[in-house]
């Protein structure tokens, strides 16, 4: 039975159901049991499951990650949360040197079933140290899996898969998705790690994207369709391992590729997808593949600058049009208000960020 709930609620529901069905699952992170409950994703968990399994922690990301790893070695299944992915940079030693390698380097004798939930911030002047989107760093590391669900339903199904997975899984949530609604099955279900979702079937151009950016691509798709341009949207859902087949199958059909990634362009996830397509679908490509991503610049704080930092819907439209050798359009031609601020998910937003 599905009902409409928010992404945040879907995350909460997945956590709740996993904790109900498996006593070894616990959740730890800054503010997990606090009144805001990590933007609602952990609200009420401590009341339900107690202080042992639902807990706050010291601001000590590296050791706390090692501690989660240690507990996993003796049979626990930790979920660790970070309110921003930027803070996780303190724990890359434990994530990369230990969690990602423990299974391999000890000859498959142990495993580290650890989920690390990382939130990507955007807007309201969070600036250079609170708006990074670092999926590319994890995607490069063997031994890690990386998922970035877009819809509430995938948020739930992928979180359950991540918790049940015996490997360290990096689960990345875009802050602007928490408030979005979608149909989500009430019961426990899984979305397989490693499978993309065709968000929209189309024939002209394959647009590969993920997470919040998928919503922007869907907006662009509607605008494009008004001009008779029919894009196919591949929502990756999982960044590592990539669903190479889904990308190749779509390219076989369209022959044209745009990758839209909500992160820095150079050496990012978008590069890997273009590389894959060029290697494996070369014959199918009718035009040079393109990517649209953040400029190689730290995130500026002033909304006057953020407005020009983040790609706009018009940019997606024009990238697609470019792939089809069509003229570039302006926002006013499409009826988009060029004053739309990009530092808030909608005009009435005033936080919390």
């Amino acid at each position, binding site marked *: 039975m599905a009902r409409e709930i928010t992404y945040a609620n879907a995350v909460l529901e997945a956590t709740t159901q996993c904790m109900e069905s498996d006593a070894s699952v616990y959740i730890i992170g800054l503010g997990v049991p606090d009144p805001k409950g990590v933007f609602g994703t952990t609200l009420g968990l401590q009341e339900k499951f107690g202080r042992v399994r639902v807990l706050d922690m010291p601001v000590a*990301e590296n050791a706390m990650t090692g501690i989660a790893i240690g507990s996993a070695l003796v049979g626990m299944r930790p979920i660790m949360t970070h309110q921003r992915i930027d803070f996780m940079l303190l724990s890359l030693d434990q994530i990369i040197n230990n969690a990602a390698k423990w299974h391999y380097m000890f000859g498959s004798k142990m495993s580290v079933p650890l989920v690390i939930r990382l939130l990507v911030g955007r807007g309201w002047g969070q600036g250079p140290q609170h708006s990074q989107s670092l999926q590319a760093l994890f995607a490069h590391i063997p031994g890690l899996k990386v998922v970035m669900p877009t819809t509430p339903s995938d948020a739930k199904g992928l979180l359950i898969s991540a918790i049940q997975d015996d490997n360290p899984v990096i689960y990345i949530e875009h802050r602007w998705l928490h408030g979005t609604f979608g149909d989500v099955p009430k019961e426990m279900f899984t979305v397989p790690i490693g499978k993309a979702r065709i968000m929209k079937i189309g024939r002209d151009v394959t647009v590969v994207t993920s997470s919040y950016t998928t919503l922007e691509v869907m907006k662009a798709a509607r605008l494009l369709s008004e001009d008779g341009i029919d894009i196919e949207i591949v929502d990756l859902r999982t960044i590592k391992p990539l669903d190479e087949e889904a990308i190749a199958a779509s390219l076989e059909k369209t022959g044209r590729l745009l990758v839209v990634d909500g992160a820095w362009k150079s050496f990012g996830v978008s590069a890997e997808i273009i590389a894959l397509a060029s290697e494996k679908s070369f014959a199918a490509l009718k035009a040079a593949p393109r990517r649209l991503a953040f400029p190689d610049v730290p995130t500026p704080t002033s909304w006057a600058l953020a407005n*020009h930092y983040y790609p706009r819907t018009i940019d997606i439209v024009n990238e697609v049009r470019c792939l089809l050798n069509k003229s570039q359009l302006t926002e006013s031609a499409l009826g988009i208000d060029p004053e739309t601020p990009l530092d808030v998910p909608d005009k009435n937003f005033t936080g919390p960020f």
Partner: protein
Amino acid sequence: MRKDSALSLYYQMLRIRMVEEAIARVYTQWQMRCPVHLCIGQEAVAAGLCANLLKKDYVLSNHRSHGHYLAKGGSLKAMFSEIYGKENGCSGGKGGSMHLVDLDAGILGSTPIVAGIIPVAAGVAFGIQMKKEHSISVAFFGDAATEEGVFAESLNFAALKKLPVIFVCENNYFSVYSPLSVRQPKKRNNLSIARGFGVEGEEGDGNDVEYVFKAAKKAVMYARSLRGPYYLQFDTYRFREHCGPNFDNELGYRTEIEFSRWCKRCPLETYQRKLLHKGSITAKIINEYKTGIQLEINEAVSFAQKSPFPKPGEAFTGVYA
């Protein structure tokens, strides 16, 4: 305490308080589009500490930096412009409230990664030492920052090299909504830890500006005479919400009783009462101060509001020096 010093401490606290309250007021016009972490209730630490510093001394701070910035002499206009995201903000609009800087005043930066500036401040002291200069370096941070490993690592190196750095911990008992009890063992004692590294220090009432002033004076003399690093911990309390212009007791993470107990110990009001009582200050002077500061604030706010936003292209410049 000499009367002029006392007045100056009071004035600094009052100014910080009034600036923070002005921010809280204008914030809800939603034109300051960035997170702000107000230090209302904690002004004594900034005022008492910085009163001992010279212009050539350096300060680095965290997300809750407005007080440190102002007490060290940072430009008010550049700060308001920065929070408003304007071109002439102290960081050109690229940083916002969480990234204040004023090189003329020796403020080398503030950043919101918890504990991120602790080693940087030690490094500034290391640079000072290598260059044989006579300034000192000060790191302001919160109780949560002492949980990060870099805190211990920085104490170790500062003691090893006898660096002229003062570590100032503002213990307001919370990290966002998380009390000390869920983060630090009951028996933990930061002063003992610092001493375990060979770092001298002192801990006390962070709402008593004269105490802060005196403790900081010792620390500054110690560091400036090249005897090494110093650790100061001041217990204090944040009155407003962790981040934003409002109060947040209704969330229930702290009790009204606790809150009002601390309000009675408001560093500004208690000091004002004390000075009035001693006759060091009069209601008239206080009003003059307030009028002057309010004028200054109004000017700075309207300066910031009228200032132009950075040009779009500015988003892409300044990545590399």
